[in-house]
């Protein structure tokens, strides 16, 4: 890895208008923070973290249901690691674990197959959280579970899709351009992002995950905004094709169907969720109810949607630093270590 070319650094430094670029994906945010990119951008180019961390945007009712299952005798919840710390109304999965519940984390959902075989008397509930990129892996697991008719593996899904939320965020006047998630584009192809650029007249660049590529994408976006253009660019051609990934999508569509979903701090977004199809209801633990119920939400007063869209700075939210802290996060921007509020709180 080498330093970015001085010409690019100079361009950022001399950039004369204030612009806001949203990086949609949590992994982009993570690389941006770890490689110190904001320090290279001068004072006028601001990066805003979008709603692209699937864990951070899970709603409280969903977490409440997971906690309830973790505390149920002979039941074990399995999830991605960072899911354990997301707060429900009463507690997180880590909290449930501390009072005797059972919640463990996996690196790949397929690990549950072995666990379920070893412990036939335990019901393993898979917390299926993710976007288009992760959905096929859960579909692969569903395929095994359903074909083998494994009785002690169930799903609680909070799978979400990117285009509907991106459409909402792109409608906000404050965001000038989008750094789009290369991993999602591997599955969806270029079309959803081309569409956003065209419909909202804002430049979109699909990029991969090394710091150089991210910096290059920001450079292209800044130039487009400066020239008042709204082009679409794919600079992650080694992995992203123009067309969608047929095989992965076919597997996802075999088991999952679209439905509404509540996003933490944002609210109900139509057709932005994926749920097991009705014919596979036996394998589901109440995902639709948990994923669409906003009655239990104690995120009243949370202004993450305004933080995400760049309308307010974190301290302007009434919960910031009091009810909502890095140890007791309320909204998605505080849940993630890279979230705007979390970074601000430190």
């Amino acid at each position: 890895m080498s330093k970015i070319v001085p010409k690019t650094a100079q361009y950022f430094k001399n950039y004369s208008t204030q612009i806001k670029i949203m990086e949609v994906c949590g992994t982009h945010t993570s690389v941006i923070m770890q490689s110190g990119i904001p320090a290279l951008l001068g004072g006028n180019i601001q990066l805003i973290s979008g709603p692209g961390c699937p864990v951070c945007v899970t709603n409280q009712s969903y977490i409440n249901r997971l906690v309830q299952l973790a505390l149920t005798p002979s039941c074990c919840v399995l999830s991605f690691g960072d899911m354990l710390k997301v707060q429900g109304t009463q507690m997180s999965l880590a909290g449930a674990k501390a009072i005797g519940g059972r919640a463990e984390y996996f690196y790949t959902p397929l690990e549950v197959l072995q666990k379920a075989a070893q412990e036939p008397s335990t019901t393993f509930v898979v917390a299926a959280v993710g976007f288009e990129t992760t959905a096929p892996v859960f579909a692969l697991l569903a395929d095994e579970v359903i074909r083998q008719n494994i009785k002690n593996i169930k799903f609680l899904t909070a799978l979400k899709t990117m285009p509907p939320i991106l459409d909402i965020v792109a409608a906000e006047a404050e965001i000038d351009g989008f750094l789009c998630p290369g991993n999602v584009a591997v599955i969806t192809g270029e079309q959803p992002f081309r569409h956003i650029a065209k419909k909202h007249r804002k430049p979109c660049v699909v990029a991969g995950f090394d710091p150089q590529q991210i910096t290059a994408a920001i450079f292209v976006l800044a130039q487009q905004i400066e020239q008042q253009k709204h082009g679409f660019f794919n600079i992650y051609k080694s992995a992203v094709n123009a067309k969608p990934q047929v095989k992965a999508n076919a597997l996802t569509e075999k088991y999952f169907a679209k439905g509404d979903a509540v996003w933490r701090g944002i609210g109900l977004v139509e057709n932005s969720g994926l749920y097991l199809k009705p014919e596979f209801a036996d394998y589901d633990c109440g995902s639709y109810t948990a994923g669409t119920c906003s009655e239990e939400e104690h995120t009243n007063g949370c202004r993450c949607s305004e933080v995400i869209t760049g309308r307010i700075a974190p301290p302007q939210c009434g919960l910031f630093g009091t009810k909502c802290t890095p140890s007791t996060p309320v909204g998605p921007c505080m849940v993630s270590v890279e979230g705007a509020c979390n970074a601000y709180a430190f």
Partner: protein
Amino acid sequence: MSEKITLAQGSGGVETKRLIESIFAKHFYNGKTQNMPDAAIVQGGNKLAFTTDSFVVEPLFFNGGDIGRLAVCGTINDLLTTGATPIALSCGFIIQAGFDVAKLEVIADSMAQTAKEASVQIVTGDTKVIEPPQNGSSTAANSAQNPQSNIFINTSGIGRFDFEPLQLENITLGDAIIVTGCLGTHHATIQSARMGFSNNIASDAAPLCEIVQSLQCSGVHLHAMRDITRGGLATVLCEIFENTPYAAEIEEAKLPVLPQVASFAQILGLDILHMGNEGNMLVFVPQSSAEAALKIIKACKYGQNAAIIGQVGNVKKPVLKTRIGGTRILRPLMGEGLPRIC
């Protein structure tokens, strides 16, 4: 609901610090953890260093070591960071009924070998046996499906001062910062073992007596040392520079990391700077002594990968200068250091 102990409070990160401050430091110390050394300096006839540490690692045996070697190294290295020469250790065993005696023997032998390597004697000990694990609940995160009897070890140690005690307060603006070995190796070893990965990553667990004593005998001017264990380099630097007018400026390109550990961390979404080590120290020396100190450390068995990674600079918080030329403010580990999905 009354507050319960969580796994995050045992991670070595921010939550651990808060637990120590709110309970132990409050009752046993002055309530603050700022500048709390790895070992205490107590007044006897002569000054002594005194410390204790407990070990609950899962799995018990891993590439490059076992719980016994860790238990001896951990306490010895804590003593060394204060500039003391370790003399004697105690060990306490808490063993669950059903534990394999043959395994206990291997662990004890490993402790004896490690103590011998460090010229330290294990002089006193205690053993307690408790109920075996119950089905469905386990003490160790990943053995839940197959509960096995476990062992926990506490070691305490004392050291004498043949040289001036080293204190974190000695660190001054401009000091060079040296790490004595590659970062994240122990963490990657344990994580590999838990996940059933076979690779050539081996724990760095080692007593660092040779490094510290060579530095002391050479007459190189030393300001302070600090063990980099759980929570990793970032957490340790944040603790050292919590209330100081200056802080560490380190360079990503200069950090020693084995390529296989770097890849491992990248694949699993772990941050090298938050990964634990068991035979790695931070050494603070005046710039004028930096090259000499590095040369001495590199000549030692466990110091071959040592590197000068930066200096104490005019910054408010510890920062990392990244390879692409950016800067990143370092943050302590928060929570359990869980892998990210995205």
